């Protein structure tokens, strides 16, 4: 079986490689293989029995007519095994191929790991290759750009601190039209909750931030948002396996929380950022667990509903289905909480098969959507199985509590004509909750 792909140009990879020679590539590989990776890499590579039990677990394999070059262990063979066989003496063309595989044909969703009899962490093996590409600099341009933005501003879209403060202020003004005396407290000390937002919510998706603020006000949460950089919870450097920047971002978030002396950090509906905030970044920084609670939107809403701090006025009647984002379900077991929330909001829930922690990735995760337009068709093709899975439910609404799943499924919807609406919990809750009379303007 041959590795056959349509050519794709990505200046982040192609131009970088022009500036690099094979010697430097070898140095990057040696660094990663000898200094960073150790027992796991060795044991996982040696223990793989090439049994193929992982093959059909991967949505890329299933979506590409069972092409072995898309199978989990197949991708490992074409990347890290190849590097090890060649003892790191690889060509620029090789790196280009590896980068393509690890950034645009694997979402690091770890579904395959659940299928391997030895629990071989295939996603880890492929991320070792991402790390090599990162040190060389051969990373999709869009991810590089966002990671650079994170280095300088701690947010993903080069937003300046004053722009953030400005945005929050006008959002508060707008919210006052809906909720009397609505507040978005900025930099308030000793609050219960520090809320972090998704970068896009400050620019293109402000409605989502407003809706969260609405929920906070109605639920009477003692909350605040940062008054400095560090308000954006996203962590795109993580996708490039740029751990240094990833750690710096998470550190900034906790520093803001310590400075404001809040009890916990709450974030919205996003997968990768939750994972970096709750353990990946935390471990990198040397903590065993997060020093103060780091709560995902799903968990937060679950508590609000359980404790009756918000009441739902009416339920959605149209059939809905639930997208389990890998980063909060397979990576943090939040499937039950998610289902509880949805059951409080919707009458008619039709589950996908497989579901919960065995669910298929949306094919946009793990940085595939952040790799930008050049790689869009890769994730659309890889998402074929997801599109079929959703179509089979017959649902009209897909609830996707993750920015990446949300956008990824919207794109699938457009391409595969699924005829669904993709929704965030925040928007649904803000829409359906009771607003007490005294809060109406």
């Amino acid at each position, binding site marked *: *079986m041959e590795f056959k792909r349509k050519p794709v140009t990505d200046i982040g990879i192609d131009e970088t490689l022009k500036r690099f020679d094979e010697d430097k590539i070898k140095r990057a590989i040696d660094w990663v293989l000898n200094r960073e990776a*150790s*027992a*796991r890499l*060795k*044991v*996982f590579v*040696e*223990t793989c*029995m*090439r*049994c*193929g*039990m*992982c*093959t*059909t*677990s991967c949505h890329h*394999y299933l979506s590409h007519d*069972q092409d*072995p*070059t898309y*199978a989990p*262990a*197949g991708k490992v*063979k074409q990347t890290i095994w190849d590097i090890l066989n060649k003892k790191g003496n690889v060509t620029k063309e090789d790196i280009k191929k590896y980068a393509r595989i690890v950034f645009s044909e694997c979402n690091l969703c770890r579904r395959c*790991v*659940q*299928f*391997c*009899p*030895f*629990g*071989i*962490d295939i996603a880890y093996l492929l991320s070792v290759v991402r790390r090599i590409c990162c040190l060389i600099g051969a990373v999709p341009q869009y991810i590089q750009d966002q990671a650079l933005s994170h280095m300088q501003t701690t947010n993903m879209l080069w937003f300046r601190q004053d722009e953030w403060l400005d945005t929050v202020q006008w959002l508060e003004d707008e919210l006052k039209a809906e909720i009397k005396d609505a507040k978005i407290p900025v930099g308030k000390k000793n609050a219960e909750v520090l809320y972090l937002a998704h970068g896009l919510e400050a620019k293109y998706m402000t409605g989502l931030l407003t809706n969260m603020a609405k929920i906070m006000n109605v639920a009477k949460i003692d909350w605040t948002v940062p008054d400095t950089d560090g308000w954006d919870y996203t962590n795109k450097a993580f996708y490039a396996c740029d751990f240094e920047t990833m750690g710096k971002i998470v550190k900034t978030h906790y520093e803001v929380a310590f400075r404001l002396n809040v009890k916990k950090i709450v974030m919205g509906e996003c997968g990768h950022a939750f994972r970096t905030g709750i*353990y990946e970044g935390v*471990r990198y920084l*040397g903590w*065993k667990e997060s020093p103060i609670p780091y709560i995902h939107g799903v968990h937060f809403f679950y508590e609000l509903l359980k404790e009756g701090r918000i009441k739902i006025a009416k339920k959605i009647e149209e059939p809905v289905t639930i997208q389990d984002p890998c980063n909060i*379900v*397979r*990576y*943090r*077991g*939040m*499937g039950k909480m998610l289902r509880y929330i949805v059951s409080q909001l919707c009458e008619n829930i039709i589950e996908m098969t*497989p579901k919960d*922690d*065995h669910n298929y990735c949306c094919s946009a995760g793990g940085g595939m959507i952040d790799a930008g337009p050049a790689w869009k068709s890769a994730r659309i093709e890889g998402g074929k199985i997801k599109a079929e899975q959703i179509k089979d439910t017959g649902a009209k609404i897909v609830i996707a509590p993750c920015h990446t799943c949300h956008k990824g499924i919207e794109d699938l919807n457009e391409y595969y004509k699924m005829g669904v609406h993709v929704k965030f919990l925040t928007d649904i809750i803000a829409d359906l909750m009771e607003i007490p009379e005294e809060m109406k303007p």
Partner: protein
Amino acid sequence: MEQFFKDPSIYTFVRGPLLWLAFLVFFLGIFYRIATTLREAKKEKIVYPYLSLRYTLRSLFRWLIPYGSISMRRHPWFTAITFLFHICLIAVSLFLVAHVELWYESWEIRWWTLPVSLADGMTLIVIFCIILLILRRLFQSDIRFLTSSSDYLVLTLVALPFITGFFAHHELVLEYKTMLTIHMLSGEIMLMAIPFTKLSHMFMFFLTRAHTGSEFGAVRHSRDF
């Protein structure tokens, strides 16, 4: 051992000193591989602090009982073949009358043995399963893509002791003693190869499952099965 010094021949060599050597390499090799792995794992910040006995056991349990994991349920035939293969392989090696007799001769210890005809059938099952595993490698596209010659070599290493053992028992192909010598020799080569080839999955299984099981259970709060 004494036999070899009294009457040095290939047969007594294979039955005496080489057998000793094989067991030595087997046990020391396993010990060495596990020890180095455990030492190297210290360099990984995320391995030891998160190991959990509960989730290690959960993971091992799910993967040691037939059809305990979603993956096995999705691959019913392959699961049946691999379980049969492994059970027969281990049972015949440990409980064959002729093997237990050898232990008795040297150490005067004895344990339960398999009825001869059952052991014979199990040997055939092992051989048959190996043929199926080879066919799978040859004809299933995703596995053929992964397979290299070393995978066939490993399968051959395992097949030889069983084929020769079967032949010796039934006095087929070659004269009994010669076949028995080849049988013991191939068994010893297999034993010595276990720690240093892909056959090491025999013990590495427990280490990788401990890590992945703990990572899924204690950190990711989800299932690894």
